[in-house]
């Protein structure tokens, strides 16, 4: 089991795969294995950081976790008080009711909100879809979440295009919170923001998880960001989770050579590095997701690759309590 969390799970992904088939005019069809049998669970009030390079499948996994992308294999289970439901089997009204609990915050606040709408409308319309029509009630709910995301209520009458990137991202968090979510996927939610604003948004996300008991899957390519915000970290490579554990375990005691390389590549504030070239213990670049290497998918780039790695796929094994890795070194 991809355990490691002691909390009650809100969303469980079991052996999820997402394959895309590219239709070509001539020649054979190509299958892109964006996610290839990944299991992750997120508990209530827990933040799980999902880290990997672009092309590792982290965004596709995030989309599958909230039902935006239908998995081609495996199950996505959402836990309600009444019990677990497989969100892939839901249809019609029951799906619509469910989906307001499963929300996503996108990377780019400049393209995820219509710039020509007034802020109040951006927030009011999703509520309308849920049947909240009373304007006074809407205003009450909005001012409540605005306090949480640190926006003054006087921006409500502004147009979205008048807002800065940091303010827009706060609006998109507010929009999500109004729908009473139980699970949020934050897909590179702070990557586009300036350092000075990043901290604030990360703080907001952290209090949302702890105060509202919302589970958050926090997708990022920055190890340092994952480190400060996450309770647990999962590292993805070419569609698979290759290492998972508490933030301290993964950052303090990384097991997989890929995790080690990502950590070596993380920038640090150090003017003394000026004269030295930094070494990262990994070869080449991430291969295309339509041509996965055999065996351990990381072996062509791995500095420790052995004969075994070329043909045999390593299983995700628990090395210490809650710390899992899929690598033949262990």
């Amino acid at each position, binding site marked *: 089991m991809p355990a490691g969390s002691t909390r009650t799970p809100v969303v469980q992904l079991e052996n999820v795969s997402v394959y895309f088939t590219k239709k070509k005019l001539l020649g054979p069809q190509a299958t892109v294995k964006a996610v290839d049998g990944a299991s992750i669970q997120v508990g209530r009030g827990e933040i799980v950081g999902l880290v990997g390079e672009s092309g590792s499948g982290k965004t596709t996994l995030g989309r599958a976790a909230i039902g935006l992308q239908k998995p081609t294999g495996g199950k996505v289970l959402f836990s309600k008080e009444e019990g677990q439901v497989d969100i892939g089997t839901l249809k019609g009204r029951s799906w619509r009711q469910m989906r307001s609990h499963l929300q996503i915050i996108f990377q780019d606040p400049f393209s995820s909100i219509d710039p020509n709408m007034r802020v109040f409308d951006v927030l009011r319309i999703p509520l309308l879809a849920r049947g909240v029509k009373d304007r006074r009630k809407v205003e009450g709910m909005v001012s409540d979440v605005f306090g949480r995301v640190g926006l003054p209520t006087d921006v409500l009458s502004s147009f979205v295009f008048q807002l800065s990137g940091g303010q827009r991202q706060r609006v998109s968090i507010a929009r999500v919170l109004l729908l009473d979510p139980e699970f949020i996927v934050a897909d590179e939610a702070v990557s586009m923001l300036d350092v000075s604003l990043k901290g604030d948004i990360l703080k907001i996300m952290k209090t949302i998880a702890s105060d509202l008991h919302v589970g958050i899957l926090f997708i990022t*390519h920055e190890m340092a960001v994952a480190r400060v915000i996450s309770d647990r970290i999962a590292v993805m490579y070419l569609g698979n989770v290759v290492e998972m554990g508490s933030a301290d375990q993964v950052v303090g005691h990384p097991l997989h050579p890929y995790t080690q390389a990502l950590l070596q590549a993380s920038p*640090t504030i150090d*003017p003394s590095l*000026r004269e030295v*070239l930094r070494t990262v213990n990994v070869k080449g670049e991430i291969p295309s997701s339509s041509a996965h290497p055999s065996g351990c998918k990381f072996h062509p780039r791995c500095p420790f690759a052995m004969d075994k790695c070329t043909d045999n796929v390593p299983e995700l094994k628990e090395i210490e309590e809650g710390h899992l890795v899929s690598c033949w070194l262990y």
Partner: protein
Amino acid sequence: MMLSVEDLRVYFSSPRGDVKALDGVDLQVSEGEVVGLAGESGCGKSTLSLAISRLIYPPGRIESGKILFQGNDILKMGPNEFRAGYRWKKIAMIFQGSMNGFTPVFTIGEQIEEVLEIHQYAGDFASRTKDLMKMVELDPVIAERYPHELSGGQKQRAFIAMALAVDPPFLIADEPTTALDVVTQVNIMNLLKRLRKEKGISILIITHDLALLSEIVDRAYILYAGRMAELGTAEQIFKEPKHPYTQGLIGSIPTLQSTKIEGIAGFMPDLANLPPGCKFAQRCPYAMQVCGKEEPLLKETKEGQRVACWLY
């Protein structure tokens, strides 16, 4: 002195009045020096790189100031003089997302050779292209490929090769690694470090990523709301920052060593409607009465370090 920007003001006209993207900015780059320019988005840092490349077009305008390149004011030159003698020949640029600057219908090699042709390179084009590819650690075979066949990191390297085609003494790198993966990012930074060491090229790096900057620059400038907040050597800026804004910026960089989350509260003021006094006062934890009234000027606090703040 390679480059000296003196009291530069660049304004953009808008219905709300002039947006003062740069309002009296000085910046120097010596020969062989790597200088960093950092600040939040909207602080004017890209405007400065565009001004040095003479790429400010209406509604933008250079209100006043000088940009001396090797002693000659490039703002006084005619467009043809600048294009023929300076742009790409002496001042090369890598812009944010410039890896998408290749046209998809020609091979990388053809595009590099076009640069050589336009700038009347004397030697053999094919062997020069091969040398350039080797210099940026790319297999020369890649010159025969089309841009879509390359990964993001390879394209960025190829673009750097193109920028260095006619051996410019000065390179502007505006967000050279944004949108690249961390591992690729380290490789590009290593490449820039090597170029500076082997070719003695001067580089102005513009980025919002201070951690990245700290690993390569000799000196750094911190820009806020179109004005310099602080400047100094890398050690001074990153180890003993004086301006509360610089301190806040450095404190808010997430690092692997800390689990604390910091940030600077509030937002940058509207550049078309700037408050009186220090532009950072509204967000500053140490703001005093004088800060809201009078604007602080850059003062030397240590040799090489200058800060615009009433605390000093």
